């Protein structure tokens, strides 16, 4: 079994680290091809309305300009697949389809020139006349439409009326942007009427499907490569408008075209985390046991058409609130509010990061109301099964996470009263929350090939799956080296190419759990075939010898992970516990997170180095979500106020607390896959923000329910609360 395997779960060196730090790893924007041309974009200056005219005369005269595309001359593109599982685009309508403007920054013209500078300059010379129409960019100003699919169990209304203790609170989250270090980039290249695309994507096969449909090609004639991707956080799942346009332009020019979004374009055209307004109603017994939970969410979506087409994006906040705690009566209601903004998308732990902000916050309020320790309240409502479907978890260790985290943090020393700890000018507060993320797994296949070479064998592991920088290269190398009992340097991993065995999009923390077991299966097949050449069952011949005996120079096998069968008996879920210490200087509006302890159950860890990195990064992402990140739009002009990383604030080094992450050892989820691993990419962020807000309340007795917890909000809340 995996837990006894020599390497799985230990810290490995990142196998791609050297080529990354020496600049040899080629990301999409690094690709240089003969005759490469460069794209720049003109974004709409209005949020809603029509383009009356695009005057490209001056731009065409500018040096180096090769092509300007607008909705007048873009040429035909096929319908795009969306929602059929083969690929995703932010908008079923292709870019530059017509004169309609849905959001500020929407691409209204593409300029292609000999150099990026020439393209950018020419783009600034394009003059666009608009007919503006009224718009809405604030979720609080928009009308909601109720989604019909309402999960419920029991009778919430009755339980809420009758309960001895009730909580009824409003929590909100702002628009937040995924800000990967690598901006979205594409190089499109037509070779003998076939399309080759180097893209910054989470899903080469999704790109392939979208591009094939758009250009009326069979999938085999579209090759997409993404061997290295510099972060994504959900924002590279969709095949972006600029990717399609790069392919259009490359075909028109018969030259490869490179398109790299500017940071301001990432912050306006790439789908953000939707804004939410969440009402949580809790009913509980006096001992804290939950009787009812009602979760009403408003989240923003793109356009009224999406609502009319019954395909609005909604931030899936209730996905986690319905499963997490034992509670007989549950109801979730979801309203979507169309806004004139780029269509929102999935951002790291979509639904969990937002839904737990509201639910865990409300639970902290229930704990205060009931005079219970927040941790004891969670323990009391613990569920060892999916609370909604009733399916037992195959492997569930949340209580151990709570206990272990509390011990590492020193939670038992917590004095429940707010304003009970002080250090100089700062009040110290301790808070905690539950972390949770579903176990996801999708069909995948991996090819493992052994080549006889001088002095032994070399192994090549290949799959279309993508490493976003998260650690798949290393994880696969660890699994394969372990399974074949070979030193790591004998293993090469190839990823991110549609010509490699198919793999799902990297999303929902699914990939290691999907691909690593497939690699293991491939290794098992290889072993079986080669071991047949042993002279005796106990003979210790190495792979090279066996290959020689078989008369083979190489051998390969494909391993697969199947789709999860409908009607699985068990549920699979990752959990964790976050404990946070903050220091608050009320009169300066200052909240600093000084300490975080996170303990997680993510199943069997494959590689300790990259898992730790993912969990640390997740916690830090949570600190940013809690304290800093928000986009706001000008109410009159729809301008995104934070158009660069000097304005859209992410944590810098000085914001990073002492983060102590740990995972439970030897807790493989063995019925989930052969390794027993679930993902670790997203769970780290969940629970951090509510734990911070709870710690702030513990520090100074002020409850903050709107993210982020900025100085202005803290000062406003203090002004409203009774002073000590």
């Amino acid at each position: 079994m995996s837990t006894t395997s020599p390497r799985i779960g230990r810290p490995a060196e990142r196998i791609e680290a050297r080529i990354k730090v020496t600049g040899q790893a080629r990301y999409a924007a690094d690709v240089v091809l003969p005759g490469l041309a460069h794209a720049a974009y003109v974004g709409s200056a209005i949020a809603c309305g029509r383009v009356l005219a695009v005057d490209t005369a001056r731009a065409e005269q500018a040096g180096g300009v090769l092509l300007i595309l607008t909705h007048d001359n873009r040429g035909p593109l096929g319908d795009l697949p969306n929602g059929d599982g083969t690929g995703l685009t932010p908008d079923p309508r292709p870019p530059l389809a017509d004169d309609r403007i849905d959001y500020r920054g929407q691409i209204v013209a593409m300029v292609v020139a000999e150099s990026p500078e020439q393209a950018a300059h020419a783009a600034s010379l394009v003059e666009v006349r608009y007919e503006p129409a009224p718009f809405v960019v604030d979720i609080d100003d928009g009308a909601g439409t109720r989604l019909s699919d309402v999960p419920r169990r029991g009778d919430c209304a009755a339980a809420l009326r009758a309960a001895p203790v009730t909580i009824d609170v409003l929590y909100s989250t702002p628009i937040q942007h995924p800000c990967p270090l690598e901006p979205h980039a594409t190089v499109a290249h037509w070779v003998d009427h076939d399309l080759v695309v180097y893209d910054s994507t989470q899903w080469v096969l999704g790109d392939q499907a979208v591009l094939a449909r758009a250009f009326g090609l069979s999938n085999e004639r579209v090759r997409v490569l993404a061997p290295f991707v510099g972060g994504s956080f959900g924002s590279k799942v969709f095949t972006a408008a600029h990717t399609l346009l790069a392919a259009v332009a490359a075909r028109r020019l018969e030259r490869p075209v490179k398109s790299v979004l500017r940071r301001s374009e990432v912050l306006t055209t790439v789908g953000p985390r939707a804004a939410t307004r969440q009402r949580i109603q809790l009913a509980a017994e006096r001992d804290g046991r939950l009787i009812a939970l009602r979760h009403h969410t408003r989240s923003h979506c793109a356009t009224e058409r999406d609502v009319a087409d019954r395909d609005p994006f909604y931030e899936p906040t209730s996905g986690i609130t319905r499963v997490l705690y034992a509670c007989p009566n549950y109801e979730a209601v979801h309203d979507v509010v169309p806004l004139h903004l780029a269509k929102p998308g999935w951002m790291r732990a979509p639904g969990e990061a937002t839904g737990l902000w509201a639910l865990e916050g409300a639970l902290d309020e229930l704990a205060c109301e009931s005079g219970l320790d927040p941790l004891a309240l969670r323990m009391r409502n613990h569920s060892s099964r999916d609370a909604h479907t009733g399916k037992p978890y195959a492997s569930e260790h949340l209580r151990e996470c709570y206990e272990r985290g509390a011990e590492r943090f020193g939670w038992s020393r917590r004095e429940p009263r707010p304003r009970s700890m002080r250090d100089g000018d700062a009040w110290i507060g301790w808070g905690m929350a539950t972390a949770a993320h579903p176990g996801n797994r999708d069909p995948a296949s991996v090819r493992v090939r052994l080549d006889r070479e001088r002095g032994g064998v070399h192994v090549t592991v290949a799959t279309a799956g993508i490493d976003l920088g998260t650690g798949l290269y290393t994880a696969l190398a660890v699994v394969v080296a372990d399974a074949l009992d070979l030193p790591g340097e004998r293993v090469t991993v190839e990823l991110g190419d549609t010509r490699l065995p198919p793999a799902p999009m990297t999303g929902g923390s699914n990939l290691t759990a999907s691909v690593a077991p497939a690699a293991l299966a491939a290794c098992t097949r290889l072993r079986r075939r080669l071991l047949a050449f042993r002279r005796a069952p106990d003979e210790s011949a190495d792979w090279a010898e066996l290959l020689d005996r078989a008369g083979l120079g190489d051998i390969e096998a494909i391993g697969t992970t199947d789709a999860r069968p409908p009607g699985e008996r068990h549920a699979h879920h990752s959990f964790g516990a976050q404990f946070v210490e903050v220091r608050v200087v009320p009169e300066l509006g200052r909240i600093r997170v000084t300490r975080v302890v996170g303990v997680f159950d993510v199943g069997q860890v494959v590689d300790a180095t990259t898992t730790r990195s993912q969990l640390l990064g997740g916690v830090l992402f949570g600190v940013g979500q809690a304290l800093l990140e928000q986009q706001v739009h000008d109410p009159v002009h729809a301008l995104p106020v934070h158009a660069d990383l000097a304005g859209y604030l992410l944590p810098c080094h000085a914001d990073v607390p002492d983060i102590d992450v740990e995972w439970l050892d030897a807790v493989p989820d063995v019925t989930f896959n052969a390794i027993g691993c679930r993902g670790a990419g997203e769970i780290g962020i969940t629970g951090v923000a509510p734990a911070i807000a709870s710690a702030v309340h513990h520090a100074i007795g002020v409850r903050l329910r709107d993210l982020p917890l900025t100085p202005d909000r803290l000062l406003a809340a203090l002004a409203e609360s009774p002073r000590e």
Partner: protein
Amino acid sequence: MRPFTYVEGISVADAAAAVHAAPAAMFLAGGTAIVDLMKLGVLAPAALVDVQRLPLGDIELDDRRARIGACVRNAQLAEHPEIRARWPVVREALLSGMSAQLRNMSTVAGNILQRTRCPYYRDPHSACNKRVPGSGCAVQTGWDRDAAVLGGSPHCLAVFPSDLATALAILDAIVYTRRGDGGARRLPFDGFHRLPGDTPERDTVLDHGELVTHLELPDLAIARRSHYFKVRDRASYDFALASAAVALDLERGHVRDARIALGGVATRPWRCTAAEQSLRGKRAELASFRAAADLALADAVARTHNGFKIELARHVVVRALSELAARPG
């Protein structure tokens, strides 16, 4: 970015004359702000005259003053041991701003000439009188959380962002310039930055082609006990929500003299002379500091979302003075 010509200045007079002669020319020093603004399409100089090779990179000190070349890097100024000893507020202000990389690249003159961070200034599509005179001021109806509470006008509410300038405002600094026509000026720092009024496009009293050559800090006893305190959204690498540069001359627990300037809340570096006056002769204690802080913010005007800055700035003044008074020496 629009095409532009680049020339390296050979001498101070030559560089000033070159910019003076071309209406759309600008000086280039560290480039950390101007290049960004050119990329954004906010500034579109036809020519850049690079002044970094000019002999303006030295810090000269004697008993009477510090003479700081315009092209001294901000890091160089912050690390100078005598600046640290005699004008600690300068070092503290510099280290509270930017990143180490930016401090290594950017210059002292560039620092005090930096443009506002107002998002409407930085967006070429928005109405902004500072960028395009007469185009309007989008912040008046827009997102004003970071807008100025002091020194604003119906034409502009843009906060002046420099930490260094806030420190210089309490140090009787002098700005020396060379004009494009060959003349030279000696400008007291007090009047160097302008209120926006109805001409917010002009941040300073400099004329076109007028090159800052030096800053002078006169030796000032009170400056030895000086301090910069800054509050920002992020723990580092962020502009001030409110900041204060303060200096105290104390005698047996009483204030003999005080200096106070505010940053992050006003349209220019904001010296608070009435607040300073109120402290003279008072005990160096919380009540006096609070009264001074109230006076410093007495004229502040809140817009929709920036009212918190008034309360915050009061606390910042009190905090800056309290910390400074508690310092030994």
